[in-house]
């Protein structure tokens, strides 16, 4: 029993971690009033850059490589999301169109670069240094809970949970967070109070690029272990769903991402788990999507997101 639970928990955590990071990213962007449907593309770029860096410098850096790759993916993700920031904030582009550009551009660019870097192959080799499984000292010695939650588990997932708590603190308990939210709710009012609206919006979008890039890197370095066009297949959109499910609150987004990760992992390991053995994996695959629609329909409606979300702010002269 404990071993089955341990498998369920650790695989749920592995699949959740990328979603948690990316959903947090979405939260920052939308809190600043910029809809970001380009999270999927940002994840693709993050996954690609982390794998390339891992393959190139892995042997020099050893075991720490995947963590360094997260930082690389964060920087590249931020640079990539700059396209979205410039387009929506300065060039007044429609947020959905601009986000769609990211989603079209990312796989095109990443596969193009993969072909130029790796002798025209559409996918990279497998990385040597991945996140793998970690046993957390001390905590793993706890009776019952230890083996289930802290033995052979995904350490990145715990980092993701800590990061969500930190993000919650930033958004709700700091001056920066208050300003970010006020820009997303009412940019005119924020502007009259002397807040630099476009700077806050830039911050929101770039942070979403950082976290989305990290999310993609986590996915590539703990699940797919290489990069191809299908490394990221809808996770960005699930992360977006998690953000909405969590009502644009970092902790809510984290909870939803953990749940969606759990559902995704069940569709993979379901055949080992008694009770759901006979459920076809397709229902677990579509569950996150259907649940999101249901939650939107029943509980959230239209009035829950930031009030000025998706609207371009044009400063009056």
């Amino acid at each position: 029993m404990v071993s089955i639970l341990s498998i369920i928990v650790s695989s749920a955590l592995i699949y959740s971690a990328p979603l948690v990071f990316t959903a947090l990213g979405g939260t920052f962007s939308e809190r600043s009033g910029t809809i970001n449907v380009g999270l999927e593309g940002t994840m693709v770029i993050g996954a690609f850059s982390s794998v390339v860096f891992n393959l190139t410098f892995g042997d020099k850096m050893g075991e720490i490589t995947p963590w360094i790759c997260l930082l690389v993916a964060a920087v590249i993700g931020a640079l990539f999301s700059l396209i979205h920031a410039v387009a929506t904030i300065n060039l007044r582009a429609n947020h959905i169109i601009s986000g769609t550009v990211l989603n079209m551009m990312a796989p095109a660019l990443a596969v193009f670069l993969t072909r130029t870097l790796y002798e025209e192959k559409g996918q990279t080799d497998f990385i040597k240094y991945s996140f793998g499984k970690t046993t957390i000292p001390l905590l793993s010695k706890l009776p019952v809970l230890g083996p289930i939650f802290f033995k052979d588990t995904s350490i990145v997932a715990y980092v993701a949970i800590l990061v969500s708590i930190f993000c919650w603190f930033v958004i709700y308990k700091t001056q920066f967070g208050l300003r970010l939210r006020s820009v997303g709710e009412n940019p005119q009012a924020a502007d009259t109070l002397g807040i630099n609206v476009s700077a806050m919006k830039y911050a929101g979008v770039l942070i979403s690029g950082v976290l989305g890039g990290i999310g993609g890197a986590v996915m590539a370095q703990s699940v797919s272990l290489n990069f191809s066009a299908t490394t990221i297949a809808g996770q960005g959109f699930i992360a977006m769903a998690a953000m909405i499910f969590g009502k644009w609150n970092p902790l809510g987004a984290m909870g939803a991402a953990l749940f969606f990760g759990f559902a995704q992992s069940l569709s993979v390991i379901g055949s080992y788990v008694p009770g759901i053995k006979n459920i076809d994996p397709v229902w677990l695959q579509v569950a996150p999507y259907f649940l999101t629609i249901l939650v939107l329909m029943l509980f959230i409606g239209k009035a829950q997101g930031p009030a000025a979300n998706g609207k371009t702010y044009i400063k009056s002269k």
Partner: protein
Amino acid sequence: MSMKEKTKNIVLPLVSVFLGLLLGGIVMVAFKYDPIQGYLALIKGSLGNTFYIGETLRHATPLILVALGFSVARSAGFFNIGVAGQVIFGWLFSIIVALQFAGLPKLFLVPLSLVAGIAAGAIWAGIAGVLRAYFGTSEVIVTIMLNYSALYLSNYAIRQILTEGDDATPKIAKNASLRWQTLTEATNYSTIHMGLVIAILMCVVIMILMQKTTIGFELRAVGLNPFASEYAGMSAKKNIILAMVISGGLAGLGGAMEGLGNFQNIFIMSSVPSTGFDGMAVALLAGGQPLGILFSGLLFGALKVGSVSMPMASGVPTEVVDIVIASIIFFVGAGYLLRYIMERLEKHKAVSATIVLSETARKEGE
């Protein structure tokens, strides 16, 4: 004299296409490919002979239909970002009907399969329309969620229901196919099919529907100002649902083209078909105008088909064309920049014109 808005609506997309191709060229140079060889291969591989022309026309067919669908919802103020999912369902159900009623004569079977595709797409998009109308849920989110649901459900149906664990359904019978022997032979056995005629016809139908009928007027009115149109006695709820149903129906028809015309079956897919987002790109480039959609659909069809020949003929990876397409849409989306530059140029011209005029006047006075 300021440039007329109409001229701008034609010039801006052309400039965007030019800039997109330019950027693609720069990317090729940056990675040590020969852009001239690359683009020559692209042109040869899309228009070089009758076979390639046939392929280009075939690729443009679903793009045009999907773009029409996207733009109907767009002019009513909705973002049907889920056209890809509606394409899958249209494709799936057209194949199901074609396989189920394979015994029917062609005259009945082809229209019946097409209608099945339209209905499947319309219902899938209609869900988003109904939810938007009655619960206020964002159609963007709902259609995104429906995209991946359609993908997984379709894969499930192919593996578990339509076949016994196979990755593809059997091919449809000849009397369900949109291929026309004469056309196939005339284009040296390309995959061109009669769907092209349907696509062109639908451009005309949608143009008339949106510009000349009460239905189209109401849809556009709701898109421009939902409150005013409600006040004028139009039902916002009805129009929301109608817009999404028409939109999804056209996307579903686009999917049926892939099934009955191009592939003649349906298979397991690992991601949503690119027809969806490419079709959106076609609509955005055309600014939602049906005639423009016809042209931009042909352009993107040529780009996509031509890109396949690029690696063999010039060593340039196929994906460069997707970079070009994404950049074109970036420039279209950021049209504010191009408009701003154009207005500046005009002002500059106007100012220098006045200076010239006043100077000649002065000289004449002397």
